């Protein structure tokens, strides 16, 4: 959850710094896969905008579906290396060109004195390190996570340059597509995940891992049971998905009653693990000392857990989101939503952020119940869009009206 927050926060910052000066001069609209058909101009009528945006969204989703099917076919015939190199190439491309141009605009905006040679060198190094960190094992997990977040930020910042109506319609369409692709029988992402879990290998995709070595830790308990997946691929086919081994989700203590229902059908070893997780969840460390330790094993597992936690960066993600693999797609589109909201006001940003986070929470709870691949986009995006428009249409005049009179309650 915190990487998602970081990603959204940085996108908001970028959008915020870049949009305020450029809103006055007419920024040129880029033409991407998401607005192939129709370019929005502010003089069009609402119907025209809506029609154009719908057409854009349809084209975008169809393109994505085609690309995803292509990927599934490639994966099915075991072109894994080809896929890996392709994704490395697209990471290179995204970091190098899109990241580079975003850096350039930032430099221009802040008037940072830097010569082009140094900039190219730095950018090249940054990009190469990112490419290396995508799939190889020897790279620290923190670096990998940082690059995943960076990729998400860059793509999201790029997406916020789309015209407004198109952004909203594309977001909703993608959420729907995600729902279909993951849940419907024969959906491309569902097939992809099932293939990957039946072959017991990692997905050749850009996935944010919240914990190092998920595979090896859960490997001794058989292949991953449940995969939460929220995937899609965008213009340049970056794979984006969320998946998680159900064992970790049981641990992650999101909904406590879910944990209870889950713990009834799992074996003793796992139960101990769950108890180990309960303590850091519920109690402060000072209270823990007083608690009569009923089960020695529990304490052991708790302590080993804590040691493990201490080894790494201690953040809430460790306890909650362990082993959850969050697709870059979610990063990107959550951030796109928030970034789009940032162009309006800070209030909408905050409302959208809350809505997205709670949607993510709901998805995780559902994941603990269903134990199968789940799309992470629909609930969050739906909540986010609803809250954005509610805030913009209803709340803003109310709050501004009261608080400019210095009335609060």
């Amino acid at each position: 959850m915190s990487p998602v927050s970081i990603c959204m926060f940085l996108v908001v910052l970028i959008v915020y710094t870049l949009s305020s000066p450029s809103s006055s001069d007419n920024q040129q609209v880029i033409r991407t896969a998401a607005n192939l058909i129709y370019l929005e101009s502010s003089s069009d009528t609402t119907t025209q905008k809506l029609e154009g945006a719908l057409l854009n969204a349809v084209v975008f989703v169809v393109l994505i579906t085609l690309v995803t099917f292509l990927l599934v076919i490639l994966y099915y015939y075991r072109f894994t290396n080809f896929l890996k190199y392709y994704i490395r190439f697209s990471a290179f491309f995204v970091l190098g060109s899109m990241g580079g141009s975003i850096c350039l605009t930032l430099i221009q905006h802040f008037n940072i004195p830097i010569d082009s040679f140094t900039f190219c060198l730095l950018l090249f190094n940054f990009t190469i390190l990112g490419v290396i960190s995508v799939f190889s094992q020897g790279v620290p997990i923190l670096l990998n996570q940082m690059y995943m977040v960076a990729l998400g930020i860059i793509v999201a910042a790029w997406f916020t340059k789309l015209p407004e109506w198109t952004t909203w319609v594309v977001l909703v369409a993608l959420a729907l597509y995600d729902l279909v692709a993951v849940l419907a029988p024969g959906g491309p992402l569902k097939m992809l995940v099932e293939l990957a879990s039946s072959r017991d290998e990692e997905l050749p995709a850009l996935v944010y891992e919240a914990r190092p070595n998920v595979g090896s830790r859960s490997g001794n308990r058989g292949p991953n049971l449940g995969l939460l997946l929220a995937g899609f691929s965008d213009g340049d086919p970056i794979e984006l998905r969320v998946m998680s081994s159900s064992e970790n989700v049981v641990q992650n203590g999101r909904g406590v009653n879910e944990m209870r229902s889950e713990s009834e059908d799992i074996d003793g070893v796992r139960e101990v693990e769950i108890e180990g997780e309960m303590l850091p969840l519920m109690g402060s460390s000072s209270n823990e000392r007083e608690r009569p330790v009923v089960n020695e094993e529990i304490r052991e597992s708790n302590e080993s857990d804590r040691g493990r936690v201490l080894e790494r960066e201690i953040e809430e993600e460790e306890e909650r989101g362990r082993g959850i693999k969050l697709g870059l797609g979610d990063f990107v589109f959550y951030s796109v939503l928030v970034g789009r909201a940032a162009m309006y006001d800070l209030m909408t940003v905050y409302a959208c952020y809350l809505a997205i986070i709670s949607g993510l929470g709901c998805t995780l709870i559902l994941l603990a119940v269903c134990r199968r691949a789940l799309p992470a986009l629909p609930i969050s995006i739906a909540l986010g869009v609803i809250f954005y428009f509610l805030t913009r249409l209803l709340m803003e005049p109310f709050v501004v009206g009261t608080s400019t009179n210095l009335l609060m309650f």
Partner: protein
Amino acid sequence: MTVAAGIGYALLALGPSLSLFIALISKKPFLILTLLSSTLVWLMSLIVMSALWRAFLPLKSTAWWPYAILILTSVGFQEGLRILFWKVYKKLEDILDAFADRVSKPRLFMMDKMQIALAGGLGHGVAHAVFFCLGLLTPAFGPATYYVEKCSKIPFFLVSAIIALAFATIHTFSMVIAFSGYEEGNKVDQCFAPVVHLIAGMLTLTNLAFGGCMIGIPLLYCVAIVTLVHCGKMAWRRLIESRSREGNFSNSQ
């Protein structure tokens, strides 16, 4: 310079809440969840209230009574929501306790309960500060500042940050008071939170008068301090009680 000023306003309103969050809440995922959900509840209450009042806004009249009605309804709605929040929390706590009993673990300690209440209150306070102060701060990062006619001595953003700080404090600690009041069945504590909330809301009505903020804000801070002191006393009393009750097996709380 103005960026620094904007950040300063934001920190003024949210600084204490931020330090509370880092010191207490951020270490425990469950508390973070409570905080997020209570923030969401508050946001939804605000949206519902604004939906109700949308038809009448903007209020053009200079009379104070429509604003009074507005504050009255909003406070009433939010206090109702607080009771609902308490009921949901109670259910969750029962589930947790049953779970703890089943695996023969100790139940939730009183400290945990108070921390949960604090997280809930902090969620309300933060949401308030964000929507009423931070949401309006956007122009403060620009190259000018803004003065309201009615309170012409202090910049508008500074006033709203100061008021937001008072309200964040009131929200945070009145939630703790209310939760312990519900739990002990203490009528005084139960009524304390709505009354304080209402008084604080009504005190902001003084800002409608010319120069009223010079009187209103100190009074508001008095209310905040009363809340704080009451909450402190109550927490202290309950801690002493619980320690004397469980003193036989705990030496360190």
